[in-house]
C-alpha cells in the first residue's frame, strides 16, 4: 500500500468514524446478548490490504484510541490490536490469499485473538474475571457475529483504499489469467 498523507488521512478518518459509530451505536445493539465489535475487523482489513507494517501501526493507533475513549487500561488494546494487524499483514505477505472468503476467516481469527488475548491479559494483570460457561459462550458468539460482519467491513476498507493499492491479489490473478502472466502495466 502506498502510504502518503492522503492515505494516512483516510485511514485516520476511518479509525475515528469506526470508533465513534462502534461506541455510540453498534455496542448498543446486541445479538444473542453480545454486541458486535467492528474495530478488530477494521485492523484486520487494513493489515490484509496494507501489509504487516501498516497493520501493526494501525492496530496500535486504533487500540490506543479505543482505550482512551472507553477509559480502559491504556496499552491493553494497543498490544492486542498491534499483533492482530501484524498477523493479518503477514498473511498477505506470505500467502497473498485471493479467495473471496479470506477476510471472513481473518475476521474470525482477529475476533478470537482479541477476545482471548483480552481474557489472558486480564488474568495476567490479576483482575478477577472467572472463566465460566457464559464467558466462553460470549466469546464464541462474538467470533461468529464478527465473522459475519468481516466481509462488508473489508469491502468498505478496500473501496476506500483502492487508489493506494497497486497490486490487489484478485486483480493480479485476473490479469495473470487473461494476459498470460504480467500485465503491460507491471512490465512497464
Amino acid at each position, binding site marked *: 500500500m502506498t502510504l502518503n498523507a492522503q492515505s494516512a488521512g483516510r485511514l485516520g478518518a476511518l479509525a475515528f468514524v469506526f470508533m465513534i459509530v462502534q461506541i455510540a451505536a453498534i455496542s448498543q*445493539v446486541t445479538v444473542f446478548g453480545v454486541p458486535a465489535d467492528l*474495530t478488530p475487523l477494521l485492523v484486520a482489513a487494513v493489515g490484509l490490504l496494507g501489509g*504487516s*507494517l501498516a497493520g501493526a501501526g494501525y492496530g496500535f493507533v486504533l487500540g490506543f484510541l479505543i482505550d482512551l*475513549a472507553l477509559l480502559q*487500561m491504556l*496499552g491493553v488494546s494497543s498490544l492486542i490490536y498491534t499483533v492482530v494487524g501484524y498477523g493479518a499483514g503477514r498473511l498477505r505477505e506470505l500467502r497473498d490469499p485471493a479467495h473471496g472468503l479470506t477476510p471472513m476467516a481473518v475476521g474470525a481469527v482477529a475476533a478470537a485473538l482479541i477476545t482471548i488475548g483480552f481474557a489472558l491479559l486480564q488474568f495476567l494483570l490479576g483482575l478477577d474475571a472467572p472463566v465460566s460457561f457464559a464467558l466462553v459462550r*460470549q466469546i464464541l458468539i462474538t467470533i461468529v457475529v464478527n465473522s459475519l460482519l468481516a466481509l462488508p467491513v473489508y469491502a468498505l476498507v478496500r473501496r476506500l483504499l483502492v487508489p493506494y493499492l497497486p497490486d490487489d491479489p484478485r486483480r493480479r490473478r485476473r490479469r495473470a489469467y487473461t494476459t498470460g502472466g504480467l500485465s503491460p502495466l507491471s512490465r512497464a
Partner: protein
Amino acid sequence: MYDRQVRRRRAVLAALVALSLILLTAYFGESSGGGLHSVQRGALQVLGPIQEGASRALKPFRDLFGWAGDTFEAKDERDKLKAENERLQRENTGLQAAGIENKELRQLNELDINADLERYEPVRARITGRNPNIFYSRITIDKGSSAGLRVDQPVITGLGLVGRVTTVAGNYSIVTLITDRDFAAAARTLPSNQQGTVRATGSGNSNALELELVEDPKRVRKGDRVVTAGSLDLKLKSYYPRDLTIGFVREIELGAGDLDRIIRVQPAAELASMVWVEVLTDVRAGTAQADSTTSP
C-alpha cells in the same frame, strides 16, 4: 534489500509492542489522579459531545436492529408473560387486601418504605456510549461534575439499580454497571428478609449476579426481590441507599452441604437496552443502618 525489510518490519513490531507494554505498566502503576488517567478524562471531554451527537444521529439504526432482535425474542417472551400474568392476577387479589392493611401499619409505625427518590436529588442522564468489550461493563452518560455528579454515586432506572459512577469529567461520566466484576453490595431479600452480599460473578454482559453470605439461604425463594441493604456499619458506608431493587432471584442451585446454595440473581434493570438513567447525587439522605453486623 530483503534483509533490511525484514529487520525494519521486526523492529517496528518490537517498538510497538514495547510501547504498549510501557503504557500498560505506567497506567497500571499510577493512581487515578495520574497523568495518563488525566489524559483519558481530557479525551472523554473532547469525545463526549461527538459520541452524544453520533448516539442521537444513529438512534434510528439502533432502533431498527433492536426491533429485529426483539421480534425474535418476543414469541418466547409472550408465552412466559402469559403464564406470569395468570400468576400475578391470582397474587393481585391477595395483595390488594394486604395493601390496605399494610398502608395502615405504615402510618402507625411512621415507616416510609416507598422509594422516595426525590430526596436523593436525582439527575437524569442519557447514555451516549457503551463499551463493546465483554470484560468491561461500562456506559458513558452525558452528565458530569457540572451537573453535580461525583464518583461513587449510585445510578438507577425506573426498574432498579444500574451501577455507580466511577469516573467524572466536566460534562460526561463513566458508569460501571452492576454486572461488572468489581460490583458488590450489601443486600437483602424480600419477602424472605435475608441479609447477604450481591456480587457480579461473570464478566461483562453476562448478566450474572450471585447472592452470597446469606444468613439462612434455605429461606430464600425463587422470585424473591433483592434490594440494597444500605450501610451495615456506620464506619463502612455503602455506595447505595437502602431498598433500591437490584434484581430477582432467578435460580437456586443446591450445593454439597445443607446450607450450600448458589443463589443466582437476574438484574431488574434492562442493562442492555436502557437509554436513560438517573444518578442519585445525595446518597446521604437515604443511607440507613441495616439490621446486621457484617459488612461486605
